[in-house]
């Protein structure tokens, strides 16, 4: 039998098991399993405060508004970059073009603003370019029957080529002052004493979670990622969904590129490079499965916070960047192995 999962024999009856007076052992086993399942599901939510407390313990003088804000800026940049990535991964794909889109957007802002273009025009131009990049990754993946891993990687090379050509080795550029303050620790958003990137991230997070939960495309994204063949049979609009999530991913990357431009003020096409793996790390640590159809952006928010906290903690206690990568790698493997277990336990109850 290929069609029924091994647990089918226990169907319905097991839900009623406690009520019909099953032996205590099986009930307690179920409770233990439920605790285990909930524990691994809750793990990223637990890790965020735990890592923060560890930072407080190990980094002298860490408890300050400045350190919290700088932590949140770090997490915001990663969180925004991973927003679309979460969606592409839930849809069963992956977007490898994020770093180069960040780089291109950074170049365009710094160069065109330097040349005196108006900001709304620059932003609209960047948005349009991002949508085209995302759509090409998605459409070519569908038409050529190639995984988006490959098409988006190809797009990534094309886009970095364009970014390098466009920057033409320029080292001068300009950004508006408010953009600089939006990613500065002492930045303000109107009267609120918080830099605007954090506000932007918070609003985007709420929108992204609502999008995945409350819209047709959101629900169909999960279906597509869970089983693309079944999605076709259920007339889910696979191509349209991929275009939307890859466009969102590119838009988010473009937004991060703009913030990066505010950060440094000079053109740098390679500024997004660390995000090649960091976005995937944040998604995975949060607990969204690379297999697709499982997870959500609320988890990636935790993932981004964990990565930011861990980086801060390791830097704070004096470890170098190679050690940070090593630690992140171990964390990814350790956490994802528990998530894998969670699926089986959850299925058994």
């Amino acid at each position, binding site marked *: 039998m290929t069609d029924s999962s091994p*647990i089918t024999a226990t*169907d319905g009856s097991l*839900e009623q098991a406690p009520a019909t007076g099953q032996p205590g052992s099986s009930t307690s086993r179920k409770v233990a399993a439920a605790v285990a399942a909930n524990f691994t599901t809750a793990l990223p939510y637990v890790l965020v405060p735990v890592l923060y407390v560890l930072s407080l313990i190990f980094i002298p003088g860490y408890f300050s508004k400045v350190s919290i804000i700088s932590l949140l800026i770090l997490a915001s940049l990663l969180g925004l970059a991973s927003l679309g990535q979460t969606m592409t991964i839930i849809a069963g794909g992956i977007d490898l073009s994020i770093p180069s889109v960040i780089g291109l957007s950074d170049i365009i802002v710094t160069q065109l603003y330097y040349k005196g273009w108006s900001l709304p025009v620059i932003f609209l131009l960047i948005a349009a370019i991002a949508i085209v990049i995302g759509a090409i990754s998605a459409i070519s993946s569908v038409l050529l029957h190639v995984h988006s891993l490959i098409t988006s990687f190809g797009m990534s090379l094309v886009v970095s080529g364009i970014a390098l050509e466009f920057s033409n080795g320029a080292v001068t550029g300009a950004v508006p002052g408010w953009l600089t303050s939006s990613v500065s620790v002492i930045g303000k958003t109107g009267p609120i004493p918080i830099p605007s990137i954090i506000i932007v991230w918070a609003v985007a997070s709420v929108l992204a979670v609502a999008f995945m939960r409350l819209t047709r495309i959101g*629900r*169909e994204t999960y279906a597509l990622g*869970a089983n693309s063949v079944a999605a076709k049979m259920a*007339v*889910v609009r696979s191509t349209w969904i991929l275009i939307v999530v890859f466009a969102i991913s590119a838009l988010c990357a473009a937004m991060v590129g703009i913030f990066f431009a505010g950060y440094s003020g000079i053109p740098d096409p390679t500024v997004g490079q660390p995000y090649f793996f960091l976005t995937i790390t944040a998604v995975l640590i949060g607990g969204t499965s690379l297999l697709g159809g499982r997870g959500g952006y609320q988890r990636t928010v935790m993932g981004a916070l964990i990565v930011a906290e861990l980086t801060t903690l390791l830097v704070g206690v004096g470890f170098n960047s190679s050690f940070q990568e090593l630690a992140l790698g171990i964390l990814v493997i350790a956490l994802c192995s528990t998530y894998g277990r969670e699926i089986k336990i959850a299925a058994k109850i």
Partner: protein
Amino acid sequence: MPPRSEASGLVIDDLSRSFGQTRALASATLRLYPGEIHSLVGENGSGKSTLIKILSGVLSPDSGTLIWEGDAPQLGSPSSAQGAGIATVFQETLIVPEMTVRENIYLGTDRIFRYGHRKGEELAGARQALSDLGLDGLDLDRPMWTLSLAERQLTTVARAMIRPWRLLILDEATSALDAQQRDRLFEYLRFAREQGKSVLFTSHRMDEVLGLADRITVLRQGATVGTMPVAQASRRGILSLMSGRADVTDVADVVSAEKGLDRRGESERQQSPPQRPVLRVEELTLRATAKPISLEVRAGKILGLAGLEGQGQVEFVECLCGLRRPADGRALVLNDNGESRSVRGYRAANRMGVRYVPRDRRYEGLFGPLSVFDNFAVTLWSELNQFGLLRRQQARKRYQQFADSSRLVAASPKRPISVLSGGNQQKVLLGRWIAMRPRVLVVNDPLRGVDHNTKEELYRLFRRLAADGVAIVFLSTEIVELLTLTDQIAVFHEGSLVAMLPTEVSSDTDVVAAMFGADRQHDDRQHGGANG
């Protein structure tokens, strides 16, 4: 015939093999002597393929005796079976399309660092084998994908032939061959028999079984129900053994009880005015060599589709729901005003109200990690959304309606669908389309792996749908299901529709006979060639 001793040849006693809850092979017994051609017959799911897979080392038995040439062989893998002199040609033509004919024939004989044979040897061996099969002119360097299906099938036979075999197993290895190619192959098999080799073959064509075999063993529900020399076998006798005519009274009772149960519903249905056709098939041709099919399904009727594996019924279903383009002809869907539109593509067919429930639940139907509710509602959102935002309240209402009426056993719609039983999963997959008010519901073997009680509930569900005016096309591999549920049974053989049996007056023997291409008085599209 050569002397027969138990020390040589194949002895199988009480062999069994289960897959989870399913006993594919319960108690198989078989004697196969050197210098004998032996035919293994049985309906779909009778255990033939399982037995053959055990003999060729693909599967291992759970219990029982298997003795080959005097001792119990270690058939742990296909290569160890080949080492024991057992070569198998499988039902599916297992080829590597990109490799040449020669490479395909010698596939698996290579060593690690060098070819097992020199190229010259390979060419000579391959040419010899193919010429024995009547394919003298075939270019050995042609890539496999350029060959016709029959040529591919013969190539897989040649692959078995070049092995040093003493037992050749052919599992439906003649399904794609024409009469001439088949005769050539049989000639070779008879020649091998003269040399004291053994052949075990299965075929869906009764004339082949009676024409080639020395003895016949019949399997039913995983157990051997009889072995006889071909001289004592008759077509009718074998068919009734296969369908279990000895205890056919049980099956008939069940069926008539079911029909009796349904009388009330049917008489209610009769009172309503005659329904108009909603699906019309015009001169639809599935394969180049098959006869065109024309039929009509009226609203409220259930059309059953039957046939042995690979006889065209699955292609027919795929043509109906737009997953496949017919070689010729078309399928039309009629709307309430009697206007017809032909089926072009899956989405378009779906929009016209043709809803398809695929065969393989896990790979084509279920969204494993998603909840029961999400699995149910996935098709609804195209209707239940406002500017892309979900109207969850409505969807929940429809879910509740469906769960109540189908007696869906799911403690909570939020649980992952993978924890439901096969039958309840199937209910959800059906509910997905029922909630979308299908005009034509096309279901591909929906009761596969469903336990008995849930089966009853699904029967009721289908009947209620039909009573509501849905036309149902119901493909099943279980004849009892078709006799229980459908109004008419369309039987397929070699890509053609060979019989249209009114369920009221048909028995399982009628259906089985038609599946093997036998003559039928109900059959006005007579299938000329295959007769025993």
